[in-house]
């Protein structure tokens, strides 16, 4: 999607880190930045999921637009 000009913020959970590294190498972008969240996600409650998303948001914003929510606080 980045190659199509669409800014993206990719999120993985930490147990998939080696897979993500292998993917970026295969795609020819070994330095591609992605966000690493704590595993697991699927067994979280809705509230826990919301908390996790809020915690990740500044990183998502930084990668997408180059600034951070923390900065504007």
């Amino acid at each position, binding site marked *: 999607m980045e190659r199509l000009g669409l800014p993206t913020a990719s999120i993985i959970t930490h147990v998939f880190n080696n*897979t993500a590294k292998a993917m970026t190498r*295969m795609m020819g972008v070994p330095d591609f930045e992605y966000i690493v969240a704590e595993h697991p996600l699927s067994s979280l409650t809705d509230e826990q999921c919301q908390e996790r998303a809020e915690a990740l948001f500044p990183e998502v914003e930084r990668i997408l637009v180059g600034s951070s929510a923390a900065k504007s606080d």
Partner: protein
Amino acid sequence: MTTNDMERSKIVESSDTIEAIEECYRMGWSDGLPVVPPVDYKVREMLESSGMTGEEEIISLEMRNRVLTSENVAANAVMAGCLPDYFPVLTTTLKALEEEKNFVHMASASTSSPAILMVLNGPIRDQINANYKDGLLGPGNRANAVLGRAIRLCFMNGFDARPGTLDRGTLGNPAKYTLCFAENEEDSPWEPMHVARGFNEDDSTVTVAVAYNPVNVNAAYGHTGESVLMAIADTLKSASMAFRYPSQWVLVIGPEHAITLNEDGWTRKDIQEYMMENAARPQSELIRLGIAQGPERDGDDKIIRRCAQDPEDILVLMGGGTGGRNSAIIDTTRYKIRTRKIGT
């Protein structure tokens, strides 16, 4: 030995056959079992039998930046132990998979560890001596054993789908070694599966699914067709299967079950409709089992989740040996099961 364009590809000189097999291990080209060294003349033989040059693109996976040419597929086919006559089955299967790209990735990567199911119908079954009788889901037949193996080797060597890195199957799945068999059309009380799916009886077809391991239903003591179907439906209702609702299913009905069903007048359509009606559970139960997302709400006990969206999503075929009263359920993913004419 040569394989073109694939990572880990290399031309290797080996002094003898045993050493060549060991070299294949060292190159990481194996699924764990010994492979046939993909010597150039065997790869050419495979390609020439299908009138291919080696350059044709058979399947690609953009998110891994990989394209498998006919030469790549042929090299893996040789390694798996395929004969040239098998090659069109492989290329047809890979092209059928590529029709739904996301599942090429899913089938090579998912934590749920799916395999590729191939069911053969029509003249190809006997042309390559595929097994549709005793032990059709198990070892002992070259075509059944090596066709599925060749597909997996294409995934492992072509897409780097190796356990723990790009294949993230949590537990793996023995069906990943191979899951290929044929239908016993001659002894089936029903029309061949490919005919039911719109093909001519003399068409050779492969039905392709992204699927899991077969689950045996040993309903030995029921004397009626309905008792056989009750046992199959009860298995389909288990938590390990109901979490996929609605899905697509392949029911391999063993010969003795087929005889009982036929004697009681059960058609293929009847069987499909029975499963739709009886392999179903309330949403509330699925939530309590943790296989559907909660929280449970009022009225969830009235919402009935069925095993499939459409009766045609339940494929029914006959195969196996006599002497036991067994059938099998093969659960599949959301990849739309496809039947394709071989070699087209």
